[in-house]
């Protein structure tokens, strides 16, 4: 096979080709490693999606194993033994953990090999990959635009054909939104489906790992080899049934609900057009569309999220104190605090970037004496209402659908001046993790932004989000697959 023919293989196709003896795991690994080195670094106009690229294929990948040596790109916040795991932060620059995250270890046990680690917003806090200590990541559809975030490096690497597939994490949309902006598939599983052990924690009640892939079949295959309970994470319960690769081509009997709140939301015209076209397509495939689904508290989800996630982050990030790993700076002469506390404070001042400091401050404020009830306590109650809204909605429909992001990929720097304008990117993606629900984003077309068409005038990818009840992954993947086959999105246009 030529390089271009190898590149045309999806993750699952590549696995099948290796298992059938048509290509070797080394052929695939060498191709992607070379592509990652050529286009995935930050120099020479690269996308800067990789923070580390493997030197060699591990000896003797098992061609008969379920993932047959397939190379996987892994978001930098997954701990990987002996390999830099920096979470996009100066605080962990050069840090090589002594153990591997369970999600990665499971993929490796199924035969996958680590191709590289991908850049991300620092500690997963961001929606554009501009808050990364190791430089911004660029969108392969238009390098002047962001790939989304926080799993932007993983999304850009897959979209550009620098990795067959990748994994990331989603706390408020960090898999789905970059997948949407890069024209690929991103799945956030039900909370608890995959162990969080070894994921550098952002907001523990929300964080969930998942796949970023070229297509829905790849997402299902990676998911199948990531799920399962783990004694090292008491919240990991796995999935109640085995993941099945999707095959369904029609949607008869499927009820899709469109929240009424969408009518009032600020959505770019091109995005709304692509979303409505996809609804019409779903209808042609046999689905019924209910436009009267009420999620009355969803409009408060963003506010609740931006209390709860920073509150958990402020606690989780207390571990970065310059003692056990990572960056350390001693107190300066003249600092108010000297000695141990002075070291903590100077280390955290130097090690954390602006957005992480903002979230730590916000979370610490929301948890502080006198404000706890007004912010954290209230946000936890809003979370209950949001979960109840979904429960009621799922009495009437099988899935809720929305645009994944209200806009296509935006220009670098467009939203960095105003934090809330950046947070608004998560408008359609935060309600699901607050309720622990699974949701997938699939590419549903190209659209111009309200501020121009993008390079070539062809437009930029739009994501279609499908959210289901807890543990509905198999059915969710079937619906996504049927739509994907009908849409026929051509992601190869973004390959470098």
């Amino acid at each position, binding site marked *: 096979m030529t390089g271009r023919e190898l590149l045309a293989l999806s993750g699952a196709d590549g696995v099948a080709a290796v298992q059938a003896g048509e290509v070797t795991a080394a052929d695939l690994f060498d191709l992607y490693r070379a592509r990652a080195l050529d286009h995935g670094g930050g120099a020479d106009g690269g996308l800067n999606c990789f923070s580390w690229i493997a030197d060699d294929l591990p000896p003797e990948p098992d061609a008969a194993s379920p993932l047959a040596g397939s190379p996987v790109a892994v978001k930098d916040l997954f701990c990987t033994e002996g390999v830099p795991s920096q979470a996009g932060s100066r605080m962990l620059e050069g840090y*090589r953990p*002594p*153990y591997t995250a369970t999600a990665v270890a499971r993929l490796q046990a199924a035969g996958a090999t680590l191709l590289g680690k991908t850049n991300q917003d620092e500690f997963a806090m961001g929606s554009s990959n501009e808050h990364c200590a190791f430089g911004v990541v660029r969108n392969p559809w238009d390098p002047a635009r962001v790939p989304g975030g926080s799993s932007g490096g993983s999304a850009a690497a897959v979209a550009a054909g620098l990795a067959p597939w990748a994994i990331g994490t989603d706390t408020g949309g960090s898999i789905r939104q970059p997948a949407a902006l890069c024209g690929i598939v991103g799945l956030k599983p039900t*909370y*608890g489906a995959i162990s969080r052990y070894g994921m550098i924690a952002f907001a523990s*009640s929300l964080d969930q790992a998942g796949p970023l892939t070229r297509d829905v079949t790849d997402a299902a295959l990676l998911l199948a080899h990531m799920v399962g309970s783990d*004694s090292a994470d*008491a*919240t990991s319960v796995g999935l109640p049934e085995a993941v099945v690769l999707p095959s369904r081509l029609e949607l008869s009997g499927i009820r899709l609900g469109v929240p009424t709140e969408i009518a009032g939301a600020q959505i770019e015209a091109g995005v709304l057009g692509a979303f409505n076209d996809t609804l019409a397509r779903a209808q042609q495939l046999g689905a019924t569309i209910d436009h009267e689904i009420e999620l009355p508290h969803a409009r*408060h989800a*963003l*506010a*609740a999220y*931006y*209390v709860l996630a920073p509150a958990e982050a402020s606690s989780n990030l207390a571990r970065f*104190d*310059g*003692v*056990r*790993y990572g*960056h*350390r700076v*001693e*107190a300066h002469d003249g*600092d108010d605090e*000297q*000695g*141990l*506390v*002075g070291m903590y*404070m*100077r280390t*955290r*001042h130097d090690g*954390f970037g*602006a957005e992480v*400091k903002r979230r*730590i*401050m*916000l979370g*610490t*404020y929301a948890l502080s004496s006198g404000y706890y009830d*007004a*912010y954290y*306590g*209230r*946000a936890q*109650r*809003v*979370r*209950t*209402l949001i*979960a109840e809204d979904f429960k009621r909605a799922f009495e009437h429909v099988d899935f809720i659908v929305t645009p994944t992001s209200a806009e296509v990929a935006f220009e670098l720097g467009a939203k960095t001046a*105003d*934090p*809330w304008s950046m*947070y608004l990117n998560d408008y359609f993606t935060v309600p699901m993790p*607050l*309720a*622990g629900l699974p949701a997938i984003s699939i590419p549903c077309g190209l659209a111009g932004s309200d501020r121009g068409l993008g390079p070539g005038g062809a437009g930029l990818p739009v994501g279609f989000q499908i959210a289901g009840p807890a543990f509905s992954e198999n059915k969710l993947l079937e619906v996504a697959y049927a739509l994907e086959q009908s849409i026929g999105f051509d992601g190869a246009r973004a390959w470098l």
Partner: protein
Amino acid sequence: MIDRNQVLHVARLARLILDEQEIVAMQRDLGSVLDHIETIGELALDDVVPTAHVIELTAALRADEPVDSLSRQATFAGAPAVSDDGFIVPSPQA
């Protein structure tokens, strides 16, 4: 709204030094974000049970069997300063 003294107080709680530029930016940015967040103040929530976690968790106990833990060497390998038997930190009394 959040005033300068609140910013300094919270920064101290969070063990963060903020330089002058950061204090000004933090006051502006936190104030703006808190204005948006305060919309949840409109909701009647007295009768709503808070959700800390979406999964019903019961006390998870693993089998009481000894397993290997990380070696001392592996544990210390990423630390900024260590001796043979621990992490070295500046004196709290300094």
